[in-house]
């Protein structure tokens, strides 16, 4: 409440092309990304190897299998992404879709004035 203005927002944008020292953060260097993939892969493997030492008490037999959760999680996620992508083909619209106002009622003058030309209807 003591800070009524939002004016400082928007000031922070800088040109993406500008090479400040932050754009070369160690986290985004290709070498560290490669390293992180290896670490990630090792952790993934470890979660499966752990199943040799820890017995999983499943509810439906199939979920006691080795790496069941790994496979099930991976495949269902791929499935969901693909399904979303396909649904997107039907449902996606430009993000200003709703900014164009629908025409609720075409003007009567427009309709009646001269007979031949009232082709336009409300499909805005």
């Amino acid at each position, binding site marked *: 409440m*003591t800070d009524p203005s*939002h004016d400082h927002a928007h000031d922070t944008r800088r040109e993406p092309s500008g090479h400040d020292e932050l754009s070369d*953060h160690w986290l985004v260097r290709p070498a560290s990304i490669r390293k992180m993939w290896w670490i*990630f892969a090792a952790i993934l493997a470890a979660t499966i190897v752990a199943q040799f030492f*820890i017995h999983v008490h499943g509810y439906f037999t199939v979920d006691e299998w080795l790496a069941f959760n*790994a496979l099930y*999680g991976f495949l269902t996620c791929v499935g969901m*992404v693909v399904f979303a992508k396909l649904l997107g083909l039907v449902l996606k619209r430009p993000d200003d879709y709703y900014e164009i106002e629908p025409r609720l009622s075409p003007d009567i003058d427009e309709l009646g004035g001269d007979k031949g030309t009232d082709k336009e209807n409300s499909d805005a």
Partner: protein
Amino acid sequence: MLEFILPPAFIMIFGAILIGIARPALRPLVALATPLVTLYFIWQVDDGIQQTATFLGYQIQLVEGSALRRLFATVFALMAFGGVLFAFRQSKWWELTAALLYASGAIGVSFAGDLLVMFLFWELMALFSTVVVWCGGTESARAAGIRYAIIHLVGGLILKIGIEGLLIQTGSVEIRALSLDGFATWMVFIGVLINAAAPPISAWLADAYPESSPMGGVFLSAFTTKTAVLSLILLFPGQPLLIWIGLFMIFYGIIYALLENDMRRILSYSIVNQVGFMVCGIGIGTELALNGAAAHAFAHIIYKALLFMSAGAVLYQTGERKCSNLGGLFRTMPVTTICGTIGALAISAFPLTSGFISKSMINSSAAAEHMAFVWFALVAASAGVFLHAGIKFPWFVFFQKDSGLRPDDPPWNMQAAMVLFSVFCVGLGAFPGLLYSLLPYPVDYVPYTADHVVTQVQLLLFAGLAFFVMLPMMRRTLTISLDFDWVYRRAVPWLVGILDTIIGRVLQAMTRAVLAVGANTVQLIREKPYGYFSSRSPMGRTAIWMAVLLAVVVLLAIV
């Protein structure tokens, strides 16, 4: 102990109004103290009916206590405190007042002893949540607020029809478990489900919440849907239909969030997804499932508010809301990045976070009832949550490509609120007993078993692998996705427009036809010589009038 128990909701209403009256320098203090004082009074409410009053000739039960009701009221008050802490230096005082009145509605519903009281506070929430949406201050916020208000007023109306029906049929508006056996109970069911963002009327949530101010979104994320969850637990526990409604909400939330570009709309869809888990648990209806639904609501309010805070902080600092314009913010917003990531891990139910100890209760309850299909769907959905909220949100906002934006972390009070809620998320996850002791039924559920941790980590990490493998398919596009609101924002106006055109044309054609018939008749009379009284109209008219005059004289003579 006070002899006379003040309804906690009234304390919050009083505090909210006091904010407006107080001197500007005192307002932050009043705003911060109100939720804490309310919290104290919430814990003074004992089990059973505590306070009655007379309203419009009815004996109403203003305050009824139980473990479940206190649990929800507690998290609503905590949420109000965190939200005020996040907002008090940035929001206008009327936004804080509206937000606290909105929260007081939620607390009022939590303690409502009968459906009349519930309805009154229900409408209070609808009213002031609309004001919070409007505090977004933009033209799109105004329009979205009106759509939001219409949906909730219609929902309230349906609920009211149901309550009146129950009153007439049974003479009682007691809050008790109802069965779907008549028109009135169906109306109550539908009225509550509209607030829960159940299909098909779920679009209001993702339509309105992202239009609020960076601070307003934090409040909006918490109250409306979770009071609906509480009402469902109280009114329709174990209603099997809810399982399927819940599953639909879960997958609807995931799919739409995957398609979305606006960061707070991603989070809005994931509210629907998370409420779906709770609704599904209520449908299963065992003690474990209802405990799970209540615990998940508690945990969810905290981590979802945290996620909305981190998104709000980004929005406040950059003015950007689209993922396609964001990215790489971890460089200059470390606190926001870490807190947002903790929220994302909590919603994904990683071990040691609050989501892990609550969501797994719902999943386990499905397995315990041998509902294989439901269980497999819930596990797939748990992986999907990590996909759409757990990684997608932090990845596209804080990491991915460098957007060139270099905003600082937000002001200290926003950081403090985020850190506080991060501590809650981890604390509840690390010490599940804290939450379990508040649940309505005794808990003998142990979340931290070696196999549970291993299977959950395996599931989530491989879902993460799927995210990065499928990354090329998830490129952000400048699009929105059509939802049910298309029906009332486009299809209905379009149909009305077409009907209007058709009716306009028919009217025009009729006018033309009548005029043409008239003109033709006149022409006929004028042009046909000797066709009628005379060839010249003035003479003919005189002849008529003469005839009329004669007739009158004759008539008078006879009389």
